[in-house]
């Protein structure tokens, strides 16, 4: 390792960082690889592709995708409203957007369940219409929408604030309609941020546990998410099985992390192109 500069404290700060990182994160995480490796390939494959496990992947990733899509559209609308329009109580609304980051997930879980249960404020209107939310896969989607809500808003908001209005003016004066201006001028500018927010919301939703377990009903094959299945395996003392499924989830979140980094690199390049 090379060091440049005259400031003190490199050895101390770097040493402490690496030590702490290894102790709290890296060594514990490595147990997943070693525990899974105690299984031979066939057993590992069987553990991570059993029908009940596959059903949980379908639910977890399907619901996370659906929730992230809802947040993509609604988050853009919210970011747009917060940046471009004035209305009473705007500061409070802006602060409240971060509630899902601040509210413990267990509280969100029981609150959403109480809302959408058949006697709840929402459930009593929805059930006569034949829409059951609590204790169904739809409930999982609702919980994941809550959890992922701030991501798209908070990634798009600053980009929209920095967007140069001159470009919109130019497009308009060249005869573009408002919709054309949005689609051809604004959307390309905010697209990387929009996709980053979408990917972050998706990644968060895939691993989510607390808000989901209360509202999901947790029926095997129907409304059982993958993180819950890991806990179930653990409670059955199937440590290797739990570690194998966890390893699959970990690898998938690595792929997502890589994708998010690529998006942010793309966004940074956009920014550079705009202000040389």
């Amino acid at each position, binding site marked *: 390792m090379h*060091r440049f*500069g005259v*400031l*003190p*404290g*490199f050895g101390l*700060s770097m040493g*402490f*960082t690496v030590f*702490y990182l290894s102790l*709290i*994160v890296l060594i*514990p*995480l490595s*147990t*997943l690889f*070693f525990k899974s490796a105690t299984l031979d390939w066939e057993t590992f494959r069987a553990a991570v592709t059993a029908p009940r496990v596959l059903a949980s992947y379908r639910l977890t990733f399907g619901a996370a995708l659906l929730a992230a899509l809802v947040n993509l559209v*609604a988050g853009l*609308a*919210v970011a*747009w*409203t917060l940046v*471009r*329009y004035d209305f009473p109580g705007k500061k409070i609304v802006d602060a*409240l957007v971060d509630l*899902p*980051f*601040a*509210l*413990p*997930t*267990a*509280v969100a879980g029981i*609150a*959403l369940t*109480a809302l959408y249960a058949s006697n709840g404020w*929402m459930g009593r209107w929805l059930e006569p219409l034949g829409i059951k939310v609590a204790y169904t896969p739809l409930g999982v989607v609702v919980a994941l*929408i809550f959890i992922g*809500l*701030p991501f798209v808003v*908070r*990634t798009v908001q600053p980009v929209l604030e920095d967007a140069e*209005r001159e470009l*919109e*003016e130019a497009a308009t004066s060249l005869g573009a309609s*408002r919709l054309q201006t949005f689609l051809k001028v604004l959307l390309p500018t905010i697209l990387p941020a929009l996709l980053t927010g979408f990917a*972050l919301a998706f990644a968060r939703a895939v691993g*989510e*546990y*607390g808000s989901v377990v*209360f509202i999901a009903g947790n029926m095997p094959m129907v409304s059982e998410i993958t993180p819950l299945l*890991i*806990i179930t395996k*653990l409670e059955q*003392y199937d*440590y290797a099985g*739990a*570690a194998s499924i*966890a390893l699959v989830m970990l690898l998938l*979140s690595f792929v997502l992390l890589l994708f998010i980094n690529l998006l942010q690199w793309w966004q940074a390049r956009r920014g550079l192109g705009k202000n040389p």
Partner: protein
Amino acid sequence: MSAARPAHLDEPAWVRRLLLAVSLGFLALFLLLPLAVVFSEALKKGWELYVEALVEPDALAAIRLTLLVAVIAVPLNLVLGVAAAWAITKFQFRGKQALVTLIDLPFSVSPVVAGLIYVLLFGSHGWLGPLLKAYDLKVVYAVPGVVLATLFVTFPFIARELIPLMQAQGNEEEQAALTLGASGWQMFRRVTLPNIKWGLLYGVILCNARAMGEFGAVSVVSGHVRGLTNTIPLHVEILYNEYAYQASFAVASVLALLALVTLVLKSVVEWRSDRQLKDRAIPSEFPGAASLQLKAAG
């Protein structure tokens, strides 16, 4: 942002009204209603039962444990955050990007997996299980496990906030202090610390909220021993599963209040740090970038 604009640059009035209605309706449905239902259910049977649910011995034990966990986890992650940000932003070395990615790692790991790895490490069938047993020590299904799992999930919060901030501030002020004869510690205390105090506070507020509210990771390692290894969120779960809904929501309302206090403090810090940064005339994109990254990390 909303200074006078030519009318032709705005959406038609009906589009504006529709967008406002959709966004505010969406936020009311997904943010306000869940928040309101917590307090409504908590107070359903009156104040007396509400208070009773909070002063009951198991609830008090859960509150004590949650405070203990936060008091350990937040300062440790604070020291780590400052050390990591110092090494990463003030020096050049190979593998810097990899180190930043590793620090972010806990954000992309499911809380359940975060709990599981400590069971695999310290559980009775884990690597260190036999050793711990020989010395009659318990880590998982006991308080140390709860602390460790919380340390893991809150690990990146403060570092994540400080890295972009200190990157933006550069080295010049510290170098000037050293040139003028300050010792390393004086330089840190008199120059670096005042520069990063708002970012630091911001990180501490979010780190603390997560430390007190973490559920998934803690639930795997706690073992759910009432009065001993239950944090407030776990106590909420137990009451809920025992159909003690009113008591469960009463305890949950404490956490909801904590969340609201967190949001208020966060807004105050954002406002103050914006002002400080404007006074110091640092390019305005940086505080935005710093808080965005942290928010995005959730």
